């Protein structure tokens, strides 16, 4: 493996994980996004999450649609295959790749235009199939790459840079996902790395479809006064409902620090998600209760963040489809082709 060679050339000061990799080894090419774009912070959080989870970069697959957000897979995990597909159709690419090789760790990056307009149908159906992947929705309320039109997540009353107002009510990916039966739903803010990193790690470890809706401001087209997706507005209205802490499998639990009752959920791979309800009586394992709470906050103009809902024991697409554990790409042809004798037997019935 090429990594083993790397440490030699690395600067000794750089911290290494069990694989001997430094955080740099999880980075990608230089970002070409605008200085200050929220998406770059999300990229940084992803890099840290993968580094801390000690995932061999090439065992991950990065998928995206089209948009500024969808460009970002080029900016992390340079040693992983990436697929920057077409606008709004990444979920189907992910579904197919997943069917072919369930052993890879799939991370999909999308934007609010990519996911909630052109891609809404595919997103909903990937959720329904519970495709095993982390789906990061970099949500800025606008179409960045096409210069700032409102997206479907733009709040009613929010104003565009040029001043005109969006009057339609937004599509909220989190409550939508919960309604559709998603097995993992979280929301965070690109400016809140301490909250975002554990959520990404939990999402990566969740077996099934993990949606992380990240408010990720567009500094160029939607960070002005009057926008409800600006840094300022988000800082002012984000309401953490659950504080999450992720302990990867193999790492011993540290002594529980801090107050408040602490719940722990164990994932398929043995990792543990620990969370502390910040918002009074919030239980992220109770779908209807969580949904209700979410909507109440929304009613008050507040944005619930944190691990909103989790169903750690849900069946993912592979289980639902009763597929073999071995990735289909690894099944030898001999096991797939029934051969000549079977063919002649079959044809006996066709006479």
């Amino acid at each position, binding site marked *: *493996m*090429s*990594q083993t060679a790397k440490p030699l050339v690395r600067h000794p000061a750089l911290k290494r994980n069990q694989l001997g990799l430094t955080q740099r080894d999880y980075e990608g090419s230089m970002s070409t996004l605008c200085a200050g774009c929220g998406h770059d912070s999300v990229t940084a959080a992803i890099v840290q999450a993968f580094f801390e989870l000690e995932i*061999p*970069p*090439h*065992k991950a*697959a990065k*998928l995206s649609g089209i948009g500024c957000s969808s460009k970002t*897979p*080029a900016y992390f995990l*340079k*040693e992983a*295959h*990436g*697929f*920057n*597909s*077409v606008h709004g*159709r990444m*979920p*189907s*690419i*992910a*579904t*197919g*790749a*997943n*069917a*072919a*090789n369930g*052993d*890879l760790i799939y991370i999909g990056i999308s934007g609010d235009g990519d996911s909630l307009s052109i891609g809404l*149908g*595919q997103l*909903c*159906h990937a959720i329904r*199939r519970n495709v095993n992947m982390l789906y990061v929705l970099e949500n800025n309320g606008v179409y960045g790459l096409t210069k700032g039109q409102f997206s479907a997540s733009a709040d009613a009353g929010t104003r565009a840079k040029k001043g005109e107002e969006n009057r339609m009510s937004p599509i909220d990916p989190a409550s939508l996902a919960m309604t559709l039966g998603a097995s993992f739903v979280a929301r965070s803010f690109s400016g809140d790395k301490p909250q975002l990193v554990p959520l990404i790690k939990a999402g990566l470890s969740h077996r099934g479809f993990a949606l992380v809706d990240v408010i990720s401001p567009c500094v160029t087209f939607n960070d002005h006064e009057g926008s409800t997706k600006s840094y300022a507005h988000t800082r002012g209205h984000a309401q953490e409902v659950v504080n999450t802490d992720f302990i990867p499998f193999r790492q011993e639990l540290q002594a529980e620090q801090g107050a408040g009752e602490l719940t722990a959920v164990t994932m398929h791979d043995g990792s543990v998600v620990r969370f502390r309800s910040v918002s009074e009586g919030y239980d992220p394992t109770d779908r209807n209760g969580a949904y209700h709470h979410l909507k109440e906050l929304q009613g008050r103009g507040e944005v619930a963040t944190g691990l909103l809902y989790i169903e750690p024991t849900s069946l993912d697409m592979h289980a639902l*489809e*009763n*597929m*073999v*554990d071995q990735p*289909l*790409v690894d*099944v030898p*042809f001999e*096991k*797939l*082709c*029934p*051969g*000549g004798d*079977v*063919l*002649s037997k*079959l*044809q006996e019935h*066709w*006479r």
Partner: protein
Amino acid sequence: MDYDTRDHTNDFVLKIGTVNGTGSASANGILMQAIFRMGVPVSGKNIFPSNIQGLPTWYEIRANKRGHTSRSPHFDVIVAMNPKTYEQDIAGTRPGGSVLYDSSWPLDEALLRDDVSFLGIPLAQMCVESFRGSRKRTLMKNITYVGALAALLAIDLDVIDEILKEKFSSKPHLMDSNNSAIKMGHDYVLEHFDYPLPARLERMEATGDSVLMNGNMAAALGCVYAGATVGAWYPITPSSSLMDEFVALCKQLRKDPETGENLYCVIQAEDELAAIGIVLGASWAGARAFTPTSGPGLSLMNEFIGLAYYAEVPAVLFDIQRTGPSTGMPTRTQQGDLFQVVFASHGDTKHIALFPADPGECFHFAVHAFDLTERFQTPVFVVSDLDIGMNDWMCDRLEWDDTYRPDRGKVLSAEELQNMEVFYRYMDVDGDGIPYRTLPGVDPKGAYFTRGSGHDRFGRYTEDGDLYQEVMDRLAEKVESAADVLPEPEIIQVPGATVGIVTIGGCRGAVLEAIAVLADESIPVDFIRIRGFPFSKSINEFLLAHEINIVVEQNRDAQLRRLLILATDVEKKTLASVLDYKGNPLSADVVLRGVRERLGLIPVAVE
């Protein structure tokens, strides 16, 4: 063309008109199979409505000792079970033919013809007396006319008995009722009519090496044998049965012996955009993946097809054509998607296509398609249609070469990558226009970023015109080079022919039958059937070698002719057209009339 002077033994067409949803399919199947087992070449064409229950539907069986089994509209025997269509069914009977109808109710005098013999059997009445329950009675009515036809057409009762035994081995309780229904119909004929009819059967030995298949079943089998593991689809007539068959076969042949788990994954997508997306994702990850669809689905796949072409992602698409444009006539056949297939998506694109003529080729071309798509790293289309895909064809028994191994094309292994200095996805290393690809998860060195946006030979994003063009020119060269390895055209030449008939797909049978008739009239014509696009040199040579080439195809706009004009050196004016796009399987009559018109043997009919 007029068959009627000929002896009709082992040479007739039987047409059964019923109401859809009344379960006549299995009865008609028994008839087909019986004729087949008597060794007589036979085919069955299902002319059904885009509806589930209550509308007219027909099944046409043609038995022909010469092996001509394309559709023929010369109906010798009509089984008229649907009063709603009595008029057109009776009118459609050939002079001297017979009409079998249900005499439980009197037949309207006005419909009678004196050049046709009417055989009334009180089927409904007999079934009411002999069976219980309306559903049962309806079903048995069908079996009863089978019994009657057995007598009228001289079908061997033992053969029918054998078929019923196989059919109901699992459910013996149905055996008795079927037997008595057969007998009831048979006896009635013996008592009341002269039998057999001039249109009758006589044992032959012409079907020993054959099987009865439809193209969708055969294509599905091809996918199984090619080692396809991921199938994605969205239901659409007439392609749905392809995936139904694939699933059925996999349940039988693709379960892990120990765990009973699936060695395949079939996903019913939310629409065709998702279906092709799933196929691209699976192929990109290294699986052999496919999607069956039809016109409307193909239109929806345009954007993704362009991505696959430009990013060089394999994908096998089956286009089971139906009558277009738009929703068109979903249960009628046509060859109207040729242009859409080869030029799908915006921008400069060109796609590889295979054109099977029958279920046998559907099987072999399906396997071939997976090799081609991986070898050339571009989408490959198997272009079939409703007639080939859903009708019952007699074909040679399928053979399988157990030494076959998939051609995965230029896929680099971890070892190969390790031994490489550096890997570039779109570099033309071998000078054949085909780059090397890598699969995710295999090795860090193989990592690259797949994109539909501008990229250079290194796989890097680019907006540089020269670097962009370099990749585009290679793509053109790559796809063109496939012409050399695609199935060669089927060519049949005769001495002294200056006229060539060019055709494609399911038109084969009708065209060959027409050529046989012309031969009898000592009018020699050569035959070529295109089997792949881009066109091979031999096609060019054939066309240039004939003064006039008549292109026979099933669409309005002469799409095959257009492709020949664009992609060969032949001069336009030497390419004539015979077009049939009414939605039914092609018949030799249409071909003959068209060819005679083009050759100036008869005046052009003004429709």
